[in-house]
Structures are given as structure tokens and as C-alpha cells.
């Protein structure tokens, strides 16, 4: 028995892939190219750093930590039985220079772990999108109320919502206190507000949530979050959506309100004396957390964080330094190297 392929040639194909002869570009950098690359990178980083720092410096920001200042309220809140008692706290401050343009009001939490594994999971996206309010499978440990009703919105995230109310007063003079106009619209991502969070389709929101319980920490059910504005009520409440977008780190700030630029505040916040009236509901002292309010203006590069600017600046400086020392080493040791090769 002879093989059939005997007469036909078994010569492998002469293709570039099979013969490993693909046309290729061989990347090789000379010393000069590398050194100039280093140099250019250094200059770029340095420049970028300076730009970022300058733009961050142009921002004015006021941060007031009210953990200490509202110690009495904090004390009250430590005891859960006093949940129905109101506690207000007023913090005055002086704005030496006006804050121009859009002004944003944030609340900032220290030591609050929104990124714990079980915490992040403890939500029901199916519920929040309005399709099935009864779906609380993933919401442990806040799935159902004591009487067995599914909680809406369920889960640890929703339950722990930041529920202090912050009002900014402009002390026009010692007697006139004007409430600074603030709006909560456009504080959440568009996709969250209009896609990810949807109320169940019912004519009446309260009847839509019939058969569900409010989260245990909440003083009122979700359909009463903002009874004045139906576009801000229920699951599509901006404060709620902002809270539900969990922070990556235990210290975070979240957008609370934007300055409504009308009347006295068309230009921004004028310089002068202000006070925050804080309705203190959110207990943080148990786990040594801290709370703060932040007022800030913004530029193209976002907030007042100096990190990127500094990082670029340092990287640039180090790179420049490195490129100079590399050049020195290169010039010095080149001789030695050729000697070695010859020997």
C-alpha cells in the first residue's frame, strides 16, 4: 500500500506567515532618542502639572466640618430612641471673597465605608428600575420589614441614606437672613436619573408603593421624599440617586445642591456672612465618622483637588532629573563599555 500523496509535492506553502517572513517594523531607539524622549516627557509633565495646579488654585472652596460643632445633636442621635426628635444646628461663617459663577454645595463624609463588599451589593437594581418592587433578593440584610413586607428601596445603601438637610442662609445684615436659593436638579448623572432609576408606572406614586415598607432608618417612605415635585419624588429623587452611586473610598463628598443664580446670587455668592442651618439626622459619631459641608466653584479640570497637578509636577521634575543623570551616566560610561566589548 503506497500513500496516495506520494506524487504530489508536500512542499509547505511559501507564504509570509508560514515562512515567518512577515514584513515587520523593527523598533530600535538610539540613546539620543531615548534621552530626548525622557526630556520631552519631563517637560510635558512639568507643563501639565503647572497648568493643573493653576487651574485648581483658581477655585474657591469653603469646607466646614460640623461634627464637633453639632456635638449636642450627635449625642442625641447616638440614642436610637430619639429618632423622632428634631435637632437643628447652626454654623456661621464668613466668606471674605465672593464666589463667582456656579457654586456647588456638597456634603462630605469621613470614615463612612460605602465601598464594603456587602454594602455595595445590598441593593436591588430591578426594584430601582421600577419593574418589580418585590424583588429584594440581593438586599440582605435589609430585605423585608419586620412584618414581612419587602422594603422599597431595599438594601443597606438605601437604608443608610444621608438625611441631614442643609440650608444656607446669607446674613445680609444682622437681622436679615436670606435663604440662599439652591436647586437639587442636575446633581445626578443623566443616565441614572432617566434610565437606571425609574418609578413604577402608576398614576399615584403612593399606591404604586403599596405593599412595600420604608427602609427602617427612614423617617418617611420613598414616595414622600419630595412631594412638591413629582419629577424628584420616589426613586428618581436626586438626593437618593446621588447617594445610591456609592463612593469608592471611605472619605467622599457628594453633590447636594447647586446655587440657583437669581436675585442677589446671579454672579455667585457675594462675600459676607453666612450660616448653615443643619437639620441633624445622620448619626456618624458611633463609628467615629465626620461630616462636613463644602461650598465650591469649579473650573474645567473639576474641583479643587491638587493631586493630579502635583503628581504631574513631581513626575515631570523627576523625569527631567532622571534624563539629565542618565545623560551624564551615558556619556561617562560609554567609554568603559566599548572597552569591555573590545576586550
Amino acid at each position, binding site marked *: 500500500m503506497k*500513500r496516495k500523496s506520494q506524487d504530489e509535492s508536500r512542499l509547505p506553502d511559501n507564504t509570509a506567515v508560514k515562512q515567518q517572513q512577515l514584513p515587520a517594523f523593527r523598533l530600535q531607539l*538610539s540613546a539620543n532618542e531615548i534621552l530626548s524622549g525622557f526630556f520631552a516627557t519631563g517637560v510635558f*509633565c512639568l507643563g501639565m502639572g503647572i497648568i493643573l495646579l493653576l487651574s485648581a488654585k483658581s477655585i474657591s472652596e469653603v469646607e466646614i466640618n460640623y461634627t464637633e460643632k453639632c456635638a449636642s445633636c450627635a449625642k442625641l442621635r447616638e440614642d436610637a430612641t430619639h429618632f423622632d426628635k428634631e435637632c437643628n444646628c447652626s454654623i456661621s461663617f464668613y466668606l471674605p471673597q465672593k464666589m463667582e459663577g456656579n457654586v456647588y454645595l456638597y456634603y462630605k463624609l469621613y470614615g463612612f465605608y460605602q465601598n464594603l463588599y456587602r454594602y455595595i451589593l445590598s441593593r436591588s437594581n430591578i426594584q430601582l428600575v421600577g419593574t418589580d418592587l418585590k424583588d429584594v433578593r440581593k438586599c440582605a440584610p435589609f430585605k423585608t420589614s419586620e412584618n414581612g413586607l419587602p422594603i422599597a428601596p431595599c438594601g443597606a445603601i438605601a437604608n443608610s441614606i444621608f438625611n441631614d438637610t442643609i440650608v444656607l442662609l446669607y446674613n445680609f445684615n444682622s437681622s436679615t437672613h436670606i435663604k440662599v436659593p439652591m436647586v437639587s436638579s442636575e446633581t445626578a448623572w443623566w443616565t441614572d436619573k432617566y434610565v437606571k432609576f425609574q418609578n413604577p408606572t402608576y398614576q399615584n406614586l403612593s399606591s404604586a408603593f403599596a405593599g412595600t415598607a420604608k427602609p427602617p432608618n427612614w423617617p418617611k417612605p420613598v414616595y414622600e421624599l419630595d412631594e412638591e415635585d413629582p419629577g424628584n419624588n420616589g426613586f428618581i429623587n436626586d438626593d437618593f440617586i446621588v447617594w445610591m452611586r*456609592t463612593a469608592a473610598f471611605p472619605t467622599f463628598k457628594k453633590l447636594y445642591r447647586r446655587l440657583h443664580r437669581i436675585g442677589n446670587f446671579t454672579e455667585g455668592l457675594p462675600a459676607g456672612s453666612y450660616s448653615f442651618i443643619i437639620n441633624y439626622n445622620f448619626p456618624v459619631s458611633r*463609628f467615629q465618622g465626620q461630616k462636613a459641608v463644602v461650598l465650591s466653584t469649579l473650573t*474645567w479640570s473639576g474641583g479643587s483637588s491638587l*493631586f493630579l497637578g502635583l503628581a504631574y509636577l513631581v513626575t515631570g521634575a523627576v523625569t527631567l532629573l532622571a534624563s539629565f543623570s542618565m545623560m551624564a551616566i551615558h556619556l561617562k560610561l560609554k567609554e568603559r563599555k566599548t572597552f569591555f566589548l573590545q576586550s
Partner: protein
Amino acid sequence: LDVKTSKYNALNFLPMNLFEQFQRLANAYFLFLLFLQLIPQISSLAWYTTVVPLMVVLSITAVKDAIDDMVKCWHSGIQGSLSCRIVTEKWMNVQVGDIIKLENNQIVTADILLLSSSEPYSLTYIETAELDGETNLKVKQAISVTSEMEDNLKLLSAFDGEVRCESPNNKLDKFTGILMYKGKNYLLNHDRLILRGCVIRNTDWCYGLVIFTGPDTKVMQNSGKSTFKRTHIDHLMNVLVLWIFLFLGSMCFLLAVGHYIWENNKGYYFQDYLPWEDYVTSSVFSATLIFWSYFIILNTMVPISLYVSVEIIRLGNSFYINWDQKMFYEPKNTPAQARTTTLNEELGQVKYVFSDKTGTLTQNIMIFNKCSINGMVYGMHVFLFSLKKVDFSYNKLADPKFSFYDKTLVEAVKKGNHWVHLFFLSLSLCHTVISEEKVEGELVYQAQSPDEGALVTAARNFGFVFRSRTSETIMVVEMGKMRIYQLLAILDFNNVRKRMSVIVRTPENRILLFCKGADTILCKLLHPSCGSLKDITMDHLDDFASDGLRTLMVAYRELDSAFFQDWSKKHSEACLSLENRENKISIVYEEIERDLMLLGATAIEDKLQDGVPETILTLNKAKIKIWVLTGDKQETAVNIAYACNIFEDEMDEIFIVEGNNDETVGGELRSAREKMKPDSLLESDPVNSYLATKPQPPFKIPEEVPNGSYGLIINGYSLAHALEGNLELELLRTACMCKGVICCRMTPLQKAQVVELVKKYKKAVTLAIGDGANDVSMIKVAHIGVGISGQEGMQAMLNSDYAFSQFRYLQRLLLVHGRWSYNRMCKFLSYFFYKNFAFTLVHVWYAFYSGFSAQTVYDTWFITFYNLVYTSLPVLGLSLFDQDVNETWSLRFPELYEPGQHNLYFNKKEFVKCLLHGIYSSFVLFFIPMGTVYNSVRKDGKEISDYQSFSLIVQTSLLCVVTMQVLSGREEGKEGGKIALETTYWTMISHVFTWGSLGFYFCILFFLYSDGLCLFFPDTFQFLGVARNTLNLPQMWLSVVLSMILCMLPVVGYQFLKPLFWPIIDRIHHCMRHPLPYPIRTKLKHTASRRSAYAFSHKQGFGALITSGKTMKAKLPKKNSFPYKR
């Protein structure tokens, strides 16, 4: 015939394959992980993060296994088709006890007791090249009782003898047994047995009784155990995976401790917002759970796709070998073949090559190359004249395959030069060749040694055609005229005499003795009158020898009738004497073999395969040591060793070990070592003092440097002593110091033992190359077995890992394919480990900010796809297409091969570097994005520090950095200021893979985070809108760029500075600075006088057979005139 049947069928494939796959540690580990993930209390990742990759990996491996199995099936099909035509059954159905018929030129595939044959006296000629590398014919003879049956099928089928014999063993030259037939016992010995692997020659048919089949046959018993070969990198990988396990375990432990502390300090008080689970009673318990949770999260450090990627890379690089046109051998129509796809990178690390001689280094063709007749040299200076073949058309009986280039010889023949005629007459008479003339004028010579065949063929072409012989006559066609010479005596060859003679009576009634033999012996027997001719001829012989040719001297003597009668009487007396017969005969022989008249000398070329000396020179330059292990005799082996540059004339000394007992062999080895390195016998020698500590058996003997270049020749029987116990280290140390080592007269098993010895104590990669069944054992034992295919036997090829048809392809296999495979594999491994460390360790940093709660940084889908989709193609592109230097450079600078031998490109040190690099990268990749999002907002005031945006930033930075890293990374010692990035070789495919992967990532991102998908499965795809909202942030891109700069610059800087600070000889660029040298050309030139001995087989010749008349064809009418003497 051991037909390998396929392992799987359609039904059992899935369960069996899965079972096999889960036996692998890594796969079992991932199965274990999967079960861990199913425990809700500790599950920290969605189940699909493990299931999807595991499924992909398993199915790729399953497909590969299925293909392998099919290929194997196909190969065994080929083996089956090779088997011979048989009376009724296929070879695979042959069983012990069957009687089978074998025909001429068939390969025997079982050990068979010869019963009868077509030839008189039931002689059967066989060729045993497959077994021992000798190509001469051997004779087997059936015992008389069975030979009477001839081809009478009735008798044969009624044959009811009973054979009792030894149990299967590996002794090729011994067999004992008893045949009980018709109430009588007949002794059976080795002469009755035809072994598997032999080829029937010159015999029309023969019948035999199958004694051993399949694995019981002597060849198979010799071929050693077939073991599953794994590469050094495989072993290293297993060790590293173990290290990673340990690292993983300790990491998880630390994180669990961290969790414990956190729960105590923070978590306990955070219970208002996140109460502990019911089953968590204390923070210790919680920490225990977290240990396993982190074990799941950090599992990607043990890369699931590592093994499958490695297999794909090896498969790809194996295909390159199959596809290589430059390893395709046109005349035999055979491409190179990678029969194993798991050993590629080892080809780049070979340190020792063990080569067979016959059929591997040589073509096994003897060519009559030159001769010296009566002081005249013919065949010299062939290259100076035009390479035109001599026209032999005047001779109708000429062999068309024979070629000769010197016209003067033909002219001399035509002119009727007396000496030339006598010379060729002597060649046509003085031999034991048997001729066969099936078709009128088409002579086929069956020579006992190929040298003889070459000489007789030469005489035939020059017009002295040996046509046929009987036991008393030799028929020669002399220049067209038929003459019959009476054969009076054959004085046969043996190893001591090193010559043979015939005595013939010419038609003119002269009695002539023709003698040919080793020059050293023959020149002592010459008549004094030949003095000056002798000197001239000796000069010529020196020339021949220095050309690497095998030489013989030819002489004659005219005897007067009375003297011959007298001698003849003495001869028959000696033959009949019972005591000391051998000795007496040789004394009688010596009486007549003297006062010879010198005719001339012949030079025969044992033709090497093309390019063998050049290949060996190249391999030597690559610091690969080549040992020749041959079953052939010493003289021929040494001759070939010189011819192909294994031994050189410049060598300081060549040691010969031929002791017959342990002491002499040990002494010879020691004295050789003392010459090479005098201190190596002192106790102070580091190796000695190391051995004195009696290290545990798997130890490594360090390399020792001799003070010159030496060669070693060792014989099979000495080797048997040397391989025993305490001498094996002596042997190894001595042999490894020599530049070339020749082991001759080796049995197949000894070949394997030598390879095993080097493997055991040198811890170097060994490669065995051979073509015959006698090489199978060493091919199996060596790390890499290479079979020379396209020869008649398939045994070596079928057991090899790589097969091609020419020895010279070895350099391409090693220096080009091996080197590339090794480099690619190393680059792949370091990159692969790096990318997984950088990927996984980010979670560890994040643990410090997420309460050690086993929170991952990335989206679960990113974890699922990272290794399989996002990063697999660039790295595959790197490891399939990268060429650090092109093939021309690899071949011209064999020195580039060296780093592989020392495993410089990937070892434990490199691994630690990868780990550190990975830690650094993960640090940058975590903290730069963290700083960026921390306390930062977008320009419309919304915060960007949410978990999902952070995730996206980190994973995008990671992917950019890791993809950039494909372009950069480790390169061994670059010339000052010149670095090449990791992918130094950018083909279109690399571009497509790299940029395509990155682009693909963004496409997938938008798909996974799209409204539709997320709304359809809100709980599985949670990252709705993150891509849209985050990818347009300037901060994000600034952070990605900064991460890239910070990850890349140190690497580039390190590569720039490394060669400046550690100016190791940079191989690549050092080489490249010089112009391309010319390809190596070697010339066969040897100055020392080195004569090859008489190149016959080490066995007795056919002389006795011829004179006894047994060789005569049955068809000859004289059949009955030769009584059968037992």
C-alpha cells in the same frame, strides 16, 4: 505491531477528557475555586468570573486533545500501511505462534523463527541497519527439519512443533530455545531468529514462526520506556505556580488579619448601617471567611489561561516547523514534522546532542572516489576540472548510478594499461559480493559491506564486470569478453587479519592470489621489489586519508602450481583439525599471503549527508556538545568523526578507552582527565570536594574546563564497565570535558544509558538524533528526540518528537526555531506573570481603603474577560510573531544560542523581577487613579469619586499600561543606548492584535455598560452609563497618561542603564556591529596521517558461505552437486 489505538471515541470523549483535564493541578484548583464561589458566605466574585474562563480553557484544551488524538490515529494508520503483505492477515492481527510468509525487501515487524526460505539450505539474507546501523547483509539459516517444508503450504499448516524459548529480553545478539518437533528436540539459536526491524534482502520468500510480537520483540524491549516529556519551563512553571500559591496564601492571611483589625475598630461600630450577617459571631470568624473571599479574588494571580496559552504558543511554533520550506527535503518529498507540540522552547536550550552515525551523519552510501594504481593517482583534482561525469557508455553492464570524474582513468583502461587492468581485475575478483541478475544486464550486488559493494561496482563500470559466481567459479566480463576464473580459495577477512585474499586460476591456467586489506598490514607483506612503489603509494594513501577517505591497499601474487598444491593440502589439513583450528588456519593463510606485488590503493568515501560538517561546526560554535553514539565499529566511527568536524586534527589528544574490566576503564578515564585538567584528580578540586560530601542523587556536576581541546573514544564493552556504579561519574566528568565524544559498538540500551547519565548529572537539555530502530531508546530518553525520516525504517521517526530527513536541518531547528520558541516563550511568561500581578495586586491596595471586605476594584465582567479577551491577543501576537533577530543572524551567530542553554531569559530571578515590577505597576495603577478621583469632581459639579467610575479608570489605565508593556520590557543586555522594546518586531498582525484588543476593549465597554443590556439584566450588568459619563472626563485621561508614564519610564530607564552599569557582552548588538560574515564553509582537510582500517563489518565475511556453495541460487542446475554439510 503495536498499533496505537485512539484514546477517545465520540461517546467517552467528554467525560474522559474532562477527567483528565481536572487531573492537572491548575484546572483542579479552578474547579475548587468554583466550588468556593458557590458558597454564598465567602463568595466575593460572581460565579461567571471563573466559569467563563474555565470553560474557554477547557474547551480549547479539549479541542486540542481531540485533534492530537486524531493525528495519532492517523499516524498509526501510516504505520499500519507500512506493514507488509501477508498471506491472510494484517500485521496487527499476527499473533505468537502464527506462521507467516515474508517476501523480499519486506520489513519484519515481529521476532520470527525462520522455518524455510526460497534460497538453498534455507538461507535468508537480512539487512539490520535498523537494529545496529550496519548495512551489510547478514545471513540467517533455518534448521534442516523445517527447511524441508519449503513453501509447501500443506506441510506448513500441518507443522505442529513446539518452541520453548527464553522470556522476552533486550539482548539483540542472543537467543536460546528448543524446538520440539516429531518427538525430537532441536536447539535454536540466534542464527535462526529474524528480528523485528530487519529487512529481507535477496530472498524471494521465507516462512517463519512468530515468536515475539509487539512490545515483546527484542527491538521494542530495547527501546526503553516511553515517558511523557515535559520541558524545563514546565517544571519551572509548576514551581512558580507553587510559589504564587504561597504568596497568595500569605497575602490572604495578611488581608484577613487586616479585616480582623478593621472589624474590631470600625466594622463593629458601623453596624447601624451594615449589620453583621447572622452567622458572623465575632470578627475572628468574619476574618476567616474573608481569608477565603480574598482567596477567590486574588485567584487571578495563578493565571487560569497560563497553561492553555503556553500550549497555544507551542502549537503555533510547532506549525512553523512543519511549514518551514527550508527544512523540506525535495528528493524525498518530506517536510519537517513537529510530532510533539509540547517541547518547542526546549529546542532553544539544547546543550548536548547525541547523534547516531549511519544514516544520520552519513548517507550510508560508499563511493569509489579515488585510486592509486602503480604509482599513478586517479580521481585527484576533481574540482579543478569541469565536473563532468565520465562516460561509461562503452560498457553495457555499467551501473548508471555510478559516477566518476577523472577521465584519465577511463583512458588508461581503454588504452589497455596492464596495471590498471590487473587492478580492476583484482577488484572484480577479490570480494565476497553476491550478484543477482534478474533481468539480463541489470546486475544487483549484495555486498556484505558497502565498501566492497562500492569497489566491485567501480570495477564493473570500468569494464571488469563481476557477473556471477558459483562456489568454484567467478564469471567476469572483462572489457566485454566473458572470462571464467576458477575460484580456488577464499582467505576471508577477520578483525585480526584485516585483509582478505582470493586465489583463482585464470583461463590461461595461471594461479593468482589477489589480496586487499588495511595498508598497515599489507605493506608488511609486500615483496621487497615494490619498495619505491610502496613509498609512492603510501604518500598517496596519506593524501587519501587526510581527505577523510577510507583506504585499502590492493596487491597480487602469482603462484606456481606446485606451491599452491602444497599449500592447499596444508590448508585442508588446518581446516579439518579439531584443535586450535582458527589459529592454524591463519598461520596457513600467512604462508601464502606474502611477497605480494603492490597494485595500488583505493579510496572510498563514506558519503556524509549534505552540510553535516558545517552543521556540526555551527552547533559547536553555539556551545552544543555533540556525542556520536553508534553501533558501528570504532574505525569507521572515528573516520566519520574526523570527516564531520567532531574530531579535529588540531586537537591536543584523543583518548581511547578500551579496557576490559572496571580497573582498566577507570584508570584510562582518570588518566585522560589528568591530562585535560591535572588538578581534577586532587582532593582540593571543587568538584571532588563537592562529591566527597556525598550529595543526594539528584545533584548536578558543575562544568569543568579542560586545558585544551580533546576527544574521547569509548567502546561498547568498556562503556558497559564505565556505566556501572562508581565509574559513571568518572566517565561523565571525563567525557564532558572533551570536545567530541565517540561511543562505538553500542547497543541501543547503552545509547539510552549514556543519554540518561548526562541527563541525570548535568541537568542540561539533551537531544538525541537518529534514524534507526537502534536509536529509539535514546530518542525516547533524551529531552528531545529527533528522527531522521524518509529512510526506510520508520521506527525512529515514529518515536521521535521532531522528524526531518536531513541532519543539516538540525541547526535550523535549534538555532532558528528553537531559539525563537525559547525567546518567545520567555517573553510570554514574564509578560504573562507581570500582567496578572499588576492586575490582581490592585485589589490588595484597595483592601486598605475598603475595610478589607474583599471588594474588588474592577467590574466583574472585566475580571472575566481580562485574561481571555482583553490581553490575550497582544501577548499571543508577541509570542507567535516576535523575532529578536532574524534567521540569518541566528544562523550566522550561533553564539546567540547560548543564553538559552543557561536559561537566562526566564528563571526564578526573572520571575521575582516580574513580581516586583507587577507590584510597582499595581501600586501606580491604584494610587494614581485614587488620587485623581479622591475629593475631585467633574466640571458640572457631579462627583467622580464613585466606585464605578473609579473602577473604570483603574481598569482602563491597567489595560493601557499592560498593552504598552507589550511594547516594552525585558531585553537582555542591549548595547549602550540602544534598547528595543519587548515587541521589537512589529508585524501587521502584531499591530492588529495590539490596537485591535485595545479598541475592542472600548467597544465591549460601551456594550456592557449600555442601557439595553443593563436594563435587561439590571443585577448582572450594574455599570449602566459609566462609560459615557467617565470616558469624557479630562481627569480620567490625565490619570491614564500619568499611570502610563510612571509605569513605562522606569522600565525604559532600567533598560537604558542596565548595559551601562553591567556591561556584559551584549551578544546581539555586539554581533550586529560587525559585517555579516560569510556562511561557514568547511573543507575536508586533515594533515595528520590517519588511516582508516579495512572497512569491513566486524563480523566474519561471507567467504565460508561462498566456498561451501550455500549461496548458490536454487535455480542453478548445480544445486545438487553440493552436498549439504552440517
